[in-house]
């Protein structure tokens, strides 16, 4: 039997959130946290959480698992609990809770949209694809794989304090994805859009984002690259 403690809050019925305990029969197997949640939901259909692909590529089930943000579907219980003690599930920190483990991600998406997350190329469109050297394409590795799960941004104190002003690690990683793309012609504009005291420079380099990214990406490094490019352009 696995003891599981789940953050519960239903705005229709609860005045404040509370932790609820569940006993889950895992059949002796080391399940993924998402599997445990679905077993808990069979006991109590009122538990709300997001999920879709259950293989770590859609980014739906980001949550705080025993104190660390991660994707429920690719986090084994043994990894979360260290093989002993109970499993504690809370919503991603720093974002408003809609219900139980479901958070309102509007602020997160707003910051993503702010960096103009789309390729801009004002040169005439060729009849085939735009050519790109494999070496130039390699620059996008470690950037384009982001799944927008918000594990990073919601583990970042700078984002907690200024979610309307600081783009956050996820958005900045994507900003650099387009800055680094040799096919994009808006690099200067993209850089100057980030050159204020908040959007980029609230990053203090504490690397919480790197620590939690379920895809193993490194937003701090991308932020460093943007800063260096700004430095080159501005000095």
């Amino acid at each position, binding site marked *: 039997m696995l003891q599981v403690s789940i953050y519960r809050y239903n705005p229709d019925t609860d005045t404040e959130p509370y932790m609820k305990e569940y006993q889950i029969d895992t059949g002796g197997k080391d399940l993924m946290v998402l599997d445990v949640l679905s077993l808990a939901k069979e006991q109590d259909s009122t538990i709300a959480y997001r999920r879709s692909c259950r293989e770590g590529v859609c980014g739906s089930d980001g949550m705080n698992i025993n104190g660390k943000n991660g994707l429920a579907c690719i986090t084994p219980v043994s990894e979360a609990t260290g093989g002993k003690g109970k499993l504690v599930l809370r919503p991603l920190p720093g974002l408003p809770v809609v219900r139980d483990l479901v958070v309102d991600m509007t602020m997160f998406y707003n910051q993503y949209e702010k960096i103009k997350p789309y390729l801009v190329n004002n040169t005439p469109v060729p009849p085939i694809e735009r050519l790109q050297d494999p070496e130039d394409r390699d620059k996008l590795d470690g950037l384009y794989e982001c799944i927008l799960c918000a594990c990073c941004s919601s583990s970042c104190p700078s984002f907690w*304090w200024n979610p309307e002003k600081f783009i956050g690690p996820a958005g900045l990683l994507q900003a650099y994805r387009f800055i680094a793309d040799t096919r994009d012609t808006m690099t200067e504009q993209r850089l100057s859009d980030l050159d*204020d*005291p*908040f959007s980029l420079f609230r990053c203090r380099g504490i690397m919480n984002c790197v620590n939690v990214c379920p895809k193993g990406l490194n937003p701090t490094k991308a932020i460093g690259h943007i800063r260096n490019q700004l430095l080159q352009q501005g000095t």
Partner: protein
Amino acid sequence: MVTSVTSLGKNGLYDWVIQRATAVILGVYFVAIIGFLIANPELTYSQWHGYMTSTYMRVFTLIALLAMAAHAWVGLWTVSTDYLTTRQLGAAGTPLRIAFQAVCALVTIVYVVWGIQILWGI
């Protein structure tokens, strides 16, 4: 682009560069001071006075003083915009932040003026 009227450079890169450049200046300054103290274990007042009133040290101390003012301003401004906000404190956030920034500005200016006065008054 987020606009900020009370930040030092009103520009992220500028503030970032200032903070790092001033940090380097302050670092070198304190190495110089501590180096002098270590090199002169039996330090007398007249030795200390002579060292601090040399033109080179007067200029260096003035630069360090200005660097400290800029460094402190960027840092405290950042602290105020992290913690003294409407998000953290509700409606009181903005007046509190402005008041805090005003006090910081005043104290910084006072220290700079006073420091210059001491530096050239001794």
